């Protein structure tokens, strides 16, 4: 063979996998802490840290020719453009016509024909065995 492949040491793989499992635990734990709008930010930061570790070490991008890393980063950049331009439309519709600022939050018609169910999906009598006070436990 006229070229040498980089062989990642076993310890690197084990360290990365352990870190990934640890971060998975952290992201579940932190999701039970109420930080308001920061919850999604922290969850995405942890996910991006994990994704970076997977791409650089498991997918070998750290040692490969940088054109491959460029291709991957470019795909993410175009995804970013896709998201930004779409949100520029969907989240700023009120600027022209205030009536369409918020999406229509009307219940679809087919819900009218659905009976109330218990937690197993079985229909319950409206005034019978269901416990209306349970509604207040969940928000």
């Amino acid at each position, binding site marked *: 063979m*006229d070229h040498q492949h980089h062989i990642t040491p076993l310890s690197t793989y084990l360290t990365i996998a352990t870190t990934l499992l640890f971060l*998975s635990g952290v992201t579940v734990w932190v999701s039970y802490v109420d930080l308001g709008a920061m919850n999604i930010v922290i969850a995405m930061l942890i996910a991006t840290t*994990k994704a970076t570790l997977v791409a650089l070490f*498991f997918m070998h991008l750290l040692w490969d*020719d940088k054109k*491959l890393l460029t291709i991957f980063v470019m*795909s993410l950049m175009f995804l970013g453009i896709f998201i930004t331009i779409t949100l520029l439309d969907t989240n700023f519709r009120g600027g022209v016509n205030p009536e369409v600022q918020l999406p229509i939050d*009307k219940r679809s018609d087919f819900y009218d024909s659905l009976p*109330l169910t218990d937690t197993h999906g079985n229909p319950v009598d409206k005034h019978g065995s269901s*416990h209306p006070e349970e509604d207040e436990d969940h928000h």
Partner: protein
Amino acid sequence: MSHDNSSPSFLQHHFHDVKQQYETSKLGMWAFILTEVLTFGGLFVAYIVYRSWYPEMFINANLLLDVNKGLLNTVVLITSSLTMALAIWAIQKKNKNLSLVMLILTFILAFMFLGIKYLEYSHKFEVGQLPGEYYSYMGPEIAHINNPHIFFSIYFIMTGLHGLHVAIGMGLIGWLIYATAKGSLHSKYYTPMEMIGIFWHLVDLIWIYLFPLFYLIG
């Protein structure tokens, strides 16, 4: 054959040498990964737009998912990514048997992932937490929320396409087990294992985002 007798049997005639063949494979694989990112990207955009429109509905519908099964699947998939990487490591170290063991472990973990996903899906089918017009669940915790069927449409499309990738990956890993056992992949030529490895890690990478976005919001 345009090559002389000294060129290895795995070198295809339209490549100049082994290095060129390897780098071409890798470039092609990453071009494919780019298309995969953009395919899933469209679905992530759908998720972002609908969640920014209906934040309360997403948070309430999210509570119907089973965090434990999602976390278990995360652990299964990360472990399978490790065993896949170790299969390549083993064959680089000329240890065919260890490589086979790691590939079989990866295959089993992929099967476990789909098994857990099946348990989740069958429960949702049973209680009627389904996409679009098939939605019928009106349990006490969700009955006052408008349009949770939208959440389940996005949930089923995204996890379903991801599950399809896991199933395809399983088929590819099955073929790797066959090819490695037969001896057509070895320490001098394991490019297919490396390419399928990249695909498998992408499947892991997408799940890394799907898990918090669907199971841990709110």
